[in-house]
């Protein structure tokens, strides 16, 4: 029995150094917003109401505005750093929209749209990037773990959480979000092993935004990333991550499998990081303007907008309202950021341990006393 290299199933072509074809994806919206049929995806979004469609669009627009505000705040010295998500709104918001309240997400640092979808408050987006906190929000109110910086580590946390949900007999699902670069990490692969072995109700969402800082995805994978999961016994979909409807559909498919006890699923959302890796990064050093330009024509928001306008679901006044809401959110985020005060230094000794710890308490007392010495 011989297994051969993954082939691009639609074309039969063997991927080469150029990397997998970004158009070899499942989608229901063409880049220009034309609705096309996809037998796998369509059933999952047949019931989407105009209200839901507008909410999806609105959250994407809000995410973009929020992201722009993050960049601006960093440029103005209000944030130490920001990781822009421009271009990835459909993946983030689309998948988040499919979730139930009891589901729990394990995001990376770039998933602003996921947090928005989960109901984050304005301060939640910025306090960590400002350096005030390691993690700003209460994980229990938005059912989201602190954003993970150690690439791929959260894939295991999600799998473990899912094993717990399974033991509780609940239908809650865990979702791990990570990038294309993360797929090279041992943790991400071990997560597939554990998830498969225990049939854990977890969804792996890989936002393949074509870049891991300066490394093109071909450094990690010359073949479609979605082709890996099946080898671990995990069905996967490779979707157009700039097609919000495809993202909702794929996520519903995966969540449904999980809730029915079928175990893990894997979604590769093919998208693009339009901005720099972070505000510290200079992408002109490693990628062509032409590439960025080409992806502009696949913009996820313009695409959904075109479709919804054509369908009569969205009009100018609705768009104005969205723009106003976006500005309001941005203003709130800005206010939460600029208004943030830095904690008392002594608080840095808190929560090292949940229970009393003589060593930390002594160091805290000593440091407080030391600081008091300056006030004399």
């Amino acid at each position, binding site marked *: 029995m011989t297994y051969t290299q993954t082939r691009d199933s639609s074309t039969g072509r063997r991927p080469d150094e150029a990397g997998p074809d970004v158009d070899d994806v499942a989608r229901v919206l063409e880049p220009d917003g034309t609705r096309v049929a996809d037998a796998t995806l369509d059933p999952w979004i047949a019931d989407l109401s105009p209200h839901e469609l507008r909410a999806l669009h609105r959250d994407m627009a809000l995410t973009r505005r929020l992201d722009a505000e993050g960049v601006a705040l960093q440029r103005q010295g209000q944030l130490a750093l920001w990781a822009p998500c421009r271009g990835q709104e459909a993946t983030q918001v689309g998948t988040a929209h499919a979730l139930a309240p009891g589901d729990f997400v394990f995001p990376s640092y770039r998933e602003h749209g996921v947090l928005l979808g989960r109901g984050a408050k304005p301060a939640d987006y910025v306090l960590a990037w400002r350096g005030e906190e390691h993690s700003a929000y209460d994980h*229990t109110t938005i059912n989201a773990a*602190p954003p993970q910086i*150690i690439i791929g580590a959260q894939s295991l946390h999600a*799998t473990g959480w899912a094993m717990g949900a399974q033991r509780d007999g609940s239908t809650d699902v865990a979702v791990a979000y990570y990038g294309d670069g993360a797929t090279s990490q041992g*943790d991400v692969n*071990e997560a597939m092993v554990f998830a498969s072995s225990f049939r854990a109700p977890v969804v792996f969402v890989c936002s393949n935004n074509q870049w891991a800082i300066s490394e093109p995805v071909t450094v990690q994978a010359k073949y479609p990333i979605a082709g890996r999961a099946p080898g671990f016994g995990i069905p996967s979909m490779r979707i157009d991550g700039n097609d919000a409807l495809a993202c909702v559909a794929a996520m519903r498919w995966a969540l449904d499998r999980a809730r029915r006890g079928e175990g893990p699923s894997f979604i590769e959302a093919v998208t693009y990081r339009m901005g720099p890796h972070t505000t510290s990064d200079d992408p002109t050093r490693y990628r062509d303007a032409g590439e960025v330009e080409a992806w502009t024509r696949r913009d996820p928001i313009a695409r959904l907008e075109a479709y919804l306008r054509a369908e009569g679901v969205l009009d100018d006044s609705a768009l104005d309202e969205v723009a106003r809401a976006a500005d309001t959110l941005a203003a709130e985020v800005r206010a939460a950021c600029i208004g943030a005060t830095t904690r008392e230094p002594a608080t840095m000794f808190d*929560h*090292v341990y949940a229970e009393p*710890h*003589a060593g930390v308490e002594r160091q805290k007392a000593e440091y407080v006393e030391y600081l008091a010495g300056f006030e004399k």
Partner: protein
Amino acid sequence: MTALTLRAAVNAGLARALEGDDKVLLMGEDIGKLGGVFRVTDGLQQRFGAQRVIDTPLAEAGIVGTAVGLALRGYRPVVEIQFDGFVYPAFDQIVCQVAKLHYRSNGRIRMPLVLRIPWAGGVGAAEHHSESPEAYFVHTAGLRVVAASNPQDAYVMLRQAVASDDPVIFFEPKRLYHSKGEVDLDVDLADAPPMHLAHVAREGTDATIVTYGAQVRTALDAALAAEDEGVSLEVIDLRSLSPIDMNTVAASVRKTGRVVVTHEAAREAGVGAEIVASVTEQCFEYLEAPPERVTGHDIPYPPSKLEKHHVPDLDRILHAVDRVLERGAGSEVLS
């Protein structure tokens, strides 16, 4: 009281923890049907089922990482790392996640996770099966680190570790797994000495030996031998390595004025360095001789035929006692 081996004491502690709280789970390689390669979890899967006593895939980062997720969902996972030398693949998850999630979340997330590690050498094992990695964890804020030296402590401290809302690295000295001691299985945890306190395993007046784990036994043997020579040694079993109960250590050193620290781990930046540094800082005026460290050498653990030259034995401890007592060539305890 029941006479149990240290291994059986841990087993009893695990059983009690599983009985007492549905959220307690065991995870590890071969801990199910086999009962672990040391049989510490013997019978537990049969009794509590495969949903609670979980044979995991062979991947330590995976085990610890999924345990983190289970803790986030409200479980209290007790992980077995098969041998000391196999904890390193999980190091990233331990240092960056287990140790830091409580802090990262400003106290909102709790990590009540126990990592049980069959630990250290002296059992004739192959490479990677005799490691003493405790200093790595002691140096990592956010972790508690404890080491049992006898069945009673193993039983009580294991239960305390499971009950703790902090992550605990729980070291079980392999070479004491078969040694027996009296265990009070019905001990009330509230009455038992808390896990973070050291224990004066033997009182003495001439010098203090500070140690932990299997070396406590060796130190007590040394104290017995010294007694024959008229030297009275106090032996402190640290029990907890993070935090270290320096009050107990300092009180002893202030009394004896002399101190020998012994452990199996390498010397350089080991736990012994911390003890000597802290003793010096806290008991400077009381010290009558420079402290001594008797440790494993700064070499990788050697082939087992040579390990008796690596793991500090009674003679090496007494040799150091001679030095802190500044005894001349004619009057060694050692002789």
